[in-house]
C-alpha cells in the first residue's frame, strides 16, 4: 500500500485546516481548524513510524496529542477573554496589532 495514500490524505487535512484558520471568523472554529492541522501532522508521524519500523514517530504523535490538549485549554481561555472584552467571539474584531 503506497505510503503516499496516507501522506496526501494528511496534506489534504492540513490544507483544509489552514483554510479554516484563514477564513473562519468565529474563534472557536479557528481553534477547531488548528486541531485539524495538528491531526494531519499526527497522521504523517504514524505513517512514517510504520513505514520505517521505528517507534519514535508514534511517541512523537503522543506528545503532539498532549500538547494539543494544552493548546486547546489555553486557546479557549484566550477566546473567553476576547469574548468577555469585546462581547463577540469574532476574530476580525481583534485588530490591536495594527502597526
Amino acid at each position, binding site marked *: 500500500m503506497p505510503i503516499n495514500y496516507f501522506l496526501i490524505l494528511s496534506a489534504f487535512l492540513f490544507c483544509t485546516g489552514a483554510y479554516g484558520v*484563514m*477564513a473562519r471568523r468565529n474563534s472557536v472554529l479557528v481553534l477547531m481548524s488548528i486541531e485539524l492541522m495538528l491531526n494531519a501532522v499526527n497522521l504523517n508521524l504514524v505513517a512514517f513510524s510504520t513505514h520505517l519500523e521505528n517507534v519514535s514517530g508514534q511517541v512523537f504523535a503522543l506528545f503532539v496529542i498532549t500538547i494539543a490538549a494544552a493548546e486547546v485549554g489555553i486557546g479557549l481561555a484566550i477566546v473567553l477573554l476576547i469574548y468577555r472584552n469585546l462581547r463577540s467571539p469574532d*476574530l476580525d474584531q481583534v485588530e490591536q*496589532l*495594527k*502597526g
Partner: protein
Amino acid sequence: MLDSAWLFPVIPAVSFLVILFFGKKLPFKGAEVGIASVGAMFLLACVVAAQWIDKVESAGHGSEKGLAALGHSVVAAAEGAKGGGEVEPIVHGFTWWQNGAAKFVVGTRVDGLVVMMLLVVTTISLLVHIYSTAYMHDDRRYTYYYAALSLFTASMLLLVVSANLLQLLVGWELVGLCSFMLIGHWWEEKENSNAALKAFLTTRTGDVGLMIGIIVCFFAANSFDIAKVNAYALSPGADHGLLLVAAVALMFGIMGKSGQFFLHTWLPDAMAGPTPVSALIHAATMVVAGVYLGARVYPVFFNGFSIGTSTFNMMAIVGAVTILIGAALAFVQHDIKKVLAYSTISQLGYMVMALGVGAWSAALFHLFTHAFFKACLFLGAGSISHSATHHSFDMREMGGLRKKMPVTFWTFMIATLALAGIFPFAGFWSKDEILATAGQGRYDVFVVVGLVGAVMTAAYMTRCVYLTFFGKYRGHHHPHESSPAITVPLVVLAVLSLLAGLLQAAPINVTKFEHWLEPVGGLPELVHPKFDYALATISVALASLAVGAAFFFLFKREESGAFKGLTQRSKVAHAGYTFLEKKYYLDDLYEGVIVAGIKGPIARASYWMNQNVIDGVVNAVGRGTTRAGRFTYGVLDQELVDGAVNDLGRETGSAGGGMTKLQSGQLQRYALLLLASVGLIGLAVYLVNVV
C-alpha cells in the same frame, strides 16, 4: 588525582553555596570559605601538575627505551621523547541525558593544556582571594563578592576541564554571568551597571557565533566530544568548507570573549568592577577563555583556515589588528586601569595572532606568562588606589610614589619589564617564541606587526610607570605602603613574572613547557622554531630603545615643558589624539546606531536613521577622509564599516515604508500571507531542485 578532575568545578561550587547561605554568619563573613576552597584547588592543581609531569616524563622514557630496544636510531627516540605522543589525555564521562538516539555526555578531560590552565586559574584566583580581604575590606557586599568569586572559579574550572563543547559552552556562559555580576558589583552608580550590561551584551554577540560554531562542529563530527571533533578535523576526509564555516563562527566567540577587534570595546569599560576582579577575570583568566577555546579545538582552525599553507588568515589578521589598535589606544588613557585594559587587549591579540600563524605552544606560553605579569600590574594599580589616591585610578593624581610604596613600585617594575619583553623577564621568552615561530612560516608581515607592537608596548608602559611612580606627587592624600595581604600576592606574582619564562628558554636548551604542554591528543604538525638570536636581539633592542625614548620624552617634558603643547600646536597630532581618545569612534557607532536602533520601534528607528545617522555618517565620512591619509585604520573604519551601516539604514528605511501597508492588525491576514509565502518558497525550492 588525574582521575578526579571533577573535583575542580565541584568544590568551588559548593563553596559558593555555603558562602551564599551561611556567609554572613561566619566570623570572616565568608572570605575564609572562599580562600580555603580555592587554596585546596590550588594544592590539587599542583598535585595534578606533578602527576601529569611524572606521566609525561615516564612515557617519554618508556618510548625511548622501547625504540632503543627495537634498534631504531637515536633521532627517532629523541622525537618520541620530545613529542611525547605516547601520553594520552585522561578522559572520564557519563551520560547526562538521552533523547532518543542523541546522547549528551558530561565529562572531564586532563591533558597538558588543561593542567596548565588549572595552574594559572587556581594560582591567580588564590592570590586574588587573599588580596581582596584587604582591598574589599568594609565593602557593602563583601560576602556576595566572595560568593561571586567562588562561582567564577567554579565556572572557569568547569570550562577548562570539560571534555565536550556543550559543557564548555555552559562554563563559558557561566563565567560571562560572573563577569557581569562582578563588573556591576557597585551597581548603585549607573555607569557601573551600564558597563556590566555592555560587557554582557557584547560578549553575547560573539557567543552567537560560538554556538553556531559548536553546532557546525557537531554536525561535522557527529559528536560534541572535543577529541572526536579534533580527530574529524585532522582526518583526510574532512570537509574543508564545513571546517571553514565552523572556524569563522568560533572565531566570533573568541573575538567576543577575548576582546579582539571589533568586539573589544567592552573590556576597557569592564574596569568599572573592583580591581582584584579586573586582575582575575579581565586580565588573567576569563578573557583568555577565547584563546583557550582556540587552542582546544585547534585542528578546526588549523585546517579550516589552512594555517601553515596560506600566508593570511582571519585569525592572524584579527590578532594583528588587535595588537596595534590596543597598543595605540593605551597611549592616550589617563586611567591607569584603562591603560592596562588596552594592554590586555593588545596582548590577547598576540595570543590570537600566534594561534593564527601556527605557534600553538607559543600562544599558550604567552597566555601563561601574561597571566602572571598582567595580574601583578592590575593588583599593583589596585594597591596604589587603595593606599595612595583614595580609590582613584587617574594617573594625573599619582606621581612620585616610588619612595612611598617601594614594594608596589618594585613589583610593578618587574611586571612592566616582563610585559615590555625585556630580557630575561617572562614576557621576553614568550613574545620571542611567538615571533620566532611566525618568522619560520610565511608570516613575515606578522613578525613586523609583533615587533611594532612590542615597541608600542614598551613605550606606553614606560609612560604609565613614569606618570605613576616618578616625578612629583600630584594627589592630595597621604600615600603609604599597603598591608601585607596586598603586598604578598604582589611579590608572589612578581617572582612568577621573573621566573616563569625560564620554563621555556630555548638558548639554554630548556623546553620543559612545550614538552609538558603538548601531549593533548590530536594536534596538527606544529612548528618548533629554533631560537632566533637576531630576532631576539632586535626585539629587545627596540623595546629598550622605546623605553629609553619614552622616558626621556616624559622626563624632558617634566623638566622644561617643551613638549607640553605638542597636541595644541600641531594639528596632525591633535587630530590623532582625538581620534584615539574617541577610541576610533567605535563606541559611538555601537551605541548610537545599533543600540538606539534596537531600542526604538522599527518605524521610528528608520526615520531616526534617515534623519540623524545618514547625515551624521556623511559628515563622519567627510571628516574621516581628511584623516585617511594619516591613519590607515581610519579608512577602514569610516568607509567600510560606516558605509555598510549607511546602506543598511537606507534599506531599512525603505523596507519599513513598504511594510506598513501589510500591517492591517488582522491576525488572519497575517496567517494568509504566511501560508502563501510558505507555498511560494516551497514552489521555489522545488523548481530550483527539480528543474
